[in-house]
């Protein structure tokens, strides 16, 4: 561990905390998936909505923490120096952990409050994905400001701005700034959802996508030794395509929330183009891997990077495209199809990224950037997790198609139509499959963690012995 920059140690802390929260996300996912099968389970004690809040908030937070960890990890490598303000960064990390603990305990034990501002400030804001109460929002903003300061100060202190760092800095400012769009209360639900989507959509389909573009660029340079010039050229192209389509692609969430009709055309058109950058990313990764004939020093990282390229394209690109034109979205909107896409896209694009970075970190701390890192276990975890996410998304896709037809198109989305759809075997059975595949995911997760804790340990020992003998 002595060969690490302090910044990399902090990155490792972030990633470790992130992976723990990933486990919490999976457990709460299993809980709410089980409540679908047995609605009386913890009924009135720990209702579906509370478990779901914990499931998706854990996801948002752990993915972001993983990204921050990745940036702290690569920052000294890119700039050739220790991160400026690292003490402040560590302090912010512990403040974040403390704040998260309080938020989680309040979700679990207080759950909900009365219909007033105090509840929204201190218990639960009740807006999907960003339920965190307002005080926590402010805390998150402060922690992120510290992070931004560290990145900017370090890059400026190193007196050179590489292409990747340039993109990263602009993107991080946008990403952080967008969070502010979700921090207000209004009685008008159309206005509420208008800016709520700025946070959700402009995060996952614009700024996060570019952020992982940067992280993947750094990872590829590390894992495959791809030349900087090639990586940066692709990154610019990806930024052009992601922002060029994703910013106005936002309109695919403005079809039915009270916003004017021109969004149907604008949102449909630009979001239909959103898969294009994801194709470019596949070409990039596969081409680079092919040029190197899959020769790498870090097998698991390389395979998770490839899973990322395909997962991003299929989960976000194909599954998103499937429901993005207003002519189909009128019926598929707000069905299990969205959940199917949400799982495949978040996993394919972002979970994979973080796992790849975790393996890169482990490689270095177990003593070698030169020795090949490989194990049997990572392959089992890899295959198991990918099979489970495909199985879960497949189940929800079947349920989603059935719901689109029975509840929306035929039934007209009334209460009775909802009941009819959810009693139909095409919706009942997939909910069992989802739970089953979710359980497999838990096993895959456990194997992943065991592997991360053990992979390369033997090599580390021999390396230490070699040093001792010399």
């Amino acid at each position, binding site marked *: 561990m002595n060969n690490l920059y302090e910044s990399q140690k902090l990155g490792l802390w972030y990633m470790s905390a992130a992976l723990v929260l990933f486990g919490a996300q999976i457990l709460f996912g299993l809980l709410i998936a089980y*409540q*679908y099968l047995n*609605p009386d389970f913890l*009924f*009135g004690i720990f*209702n*579906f*909505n*509370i478990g*779901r809040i914990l499931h998706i908030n854990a996801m948002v937070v752990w993915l972001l923490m993983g990204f921050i960890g990745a940036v702290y990890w690569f920052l000294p490598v890119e700039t050739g120096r220790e991160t400026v303000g690292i003490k402040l960064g560590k302090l912010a990390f512990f403040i974040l952990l403390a704040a998260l603990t309080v938020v989680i305990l309040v979700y679990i034990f207080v759950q*909900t409050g*009365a219909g007033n501002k105090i*509840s*929204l400030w201190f218990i639960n804001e*009740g*807006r*999907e994905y960003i*339920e965190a109460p307002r005080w926590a929002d402010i805390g998150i903003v402060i922690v992120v400001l510290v992070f931004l300061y560290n990145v900017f100060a370090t890059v400026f202190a190193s007196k050179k701005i590489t*292409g990747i760092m340039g993109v990263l800095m602009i993107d991080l400012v946008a990403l952080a700034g967008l969070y502010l769009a979700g921090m207000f*209360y209004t*009685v*008008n*639900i*159309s*206005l509420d959802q*208008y800016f709520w989507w700025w946070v959700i959509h402009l995060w996952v389909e614009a700024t996060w996508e570019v952020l992982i573009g940067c992280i993947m660029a750094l990872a590829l340079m590390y894992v495959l030794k791809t030349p900087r*010039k090639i990586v*940066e*050229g692709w990154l*610019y192209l990806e*930024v*052009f395509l992601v922002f*060029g389509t994703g*910013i*106005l692609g936002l309109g695919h969430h403005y*079809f*039915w929330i*009270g*916003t*004017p*009709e*021109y*969004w*149907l*055309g604008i949102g449909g*058109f630009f979001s239909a183009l959103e898969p294009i950058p994801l194709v470019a990313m596949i070409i990039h990764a596969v081409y680079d891997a092919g040029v190197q004939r899959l020769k790498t020093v870090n097998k698991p990282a390389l395979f998770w990077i490839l899973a990322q390229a395909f997962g991003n394209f299929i989960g976000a690109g194909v599954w998103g495209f499937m429901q993005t034109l207003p002519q189909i979205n009128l019926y598929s*909107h*707000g069905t*299990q199809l969205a959940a199917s896409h949400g799982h495949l896209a978040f996993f394919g694009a972002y979970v994979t990224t973080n796992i790849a970075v975790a393996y890169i970190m482990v490689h270095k701390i177990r003593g070698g950037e030169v020795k090949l890192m490989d194990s049997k276990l990572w392959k089992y975890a890899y295959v198991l997790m990918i099979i489970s996410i495909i199985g879960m998304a497949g189940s929800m896709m079947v349920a989603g198609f059935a719901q689109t037809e029975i509840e*929306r*198109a035929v*039934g*007209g*989305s*009334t*209460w*009775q*139509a*909802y*009941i009819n759809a959810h009693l139909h075997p095409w919706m009942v059975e997939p909910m069992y499959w989802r739970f089953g595949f979710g359980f497999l995911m838990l096993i895959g997760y456990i194997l992943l963690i065991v592997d991360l804790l053990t992979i390369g340990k033997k090599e580390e020992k021999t390396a230490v012995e070699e040093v001792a003998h010399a």
Partner: protein
Amino acid sequence: MNFNWLEIIVFAIFLSIVVSAIFVRGKSWLEPNFWKRTALITSIIMVAVLLVLTVDTLSKISMGTDRIPDATVINKKISYVYSDEKHRFVPKIEGQEKFFGKIWSKNEAEELLNIGKMTIQSRACMDCHTLLGNGAYYAPDLTKAWLDPKWNLLIKNMVNAKTKEEAIVKWLMNTDKYPTFTRRMPNMHLSEKEAKAVVAYLKWMSAIDTNGFPDNFLSSQK
């Protein structure tokens, strides 16, 4: 302003191409710098278009516009009908209708909706239901819930109420005792004031022009 979607698309793309072309003059498309500039310019133009559209949209979705009614719509009769002209369903607002036995002043109605919205947020309704189609998929969509035929067909008798709004309040306050399906709604421990406010909010929301979502809503065929 009246935008046409096609004009906006063509304008945004055309402007991005022309401005980018000016700034990458003489550069080969294989140079990273070519894409660096294109990326920067296109992003700025797309953000600018989004900001302009946002200004326009905000003016069209404030309360009291054609698309989003003001709070006093809770004193009106609301229905959801197919428009031959627009080829989709639209809310129809006409005629006075007492709400909880009275006509609400603008201030009273606004205050009621405000409590309703805060209640809906504080109880995290959106993490079981969808509102305007967004949220969770465990429970029915609430976009047009006020207009749902089930209130009159079933719930009114079930909870022994005279009016629809009274039925919804009684049901909302005792959801765990009145199941309609194997999946019951948990008791959210609403006070009577909160429950009334939520009903008002649902009524107001059902009057929003959602471009025809949900389509084919059965209550229109009463």
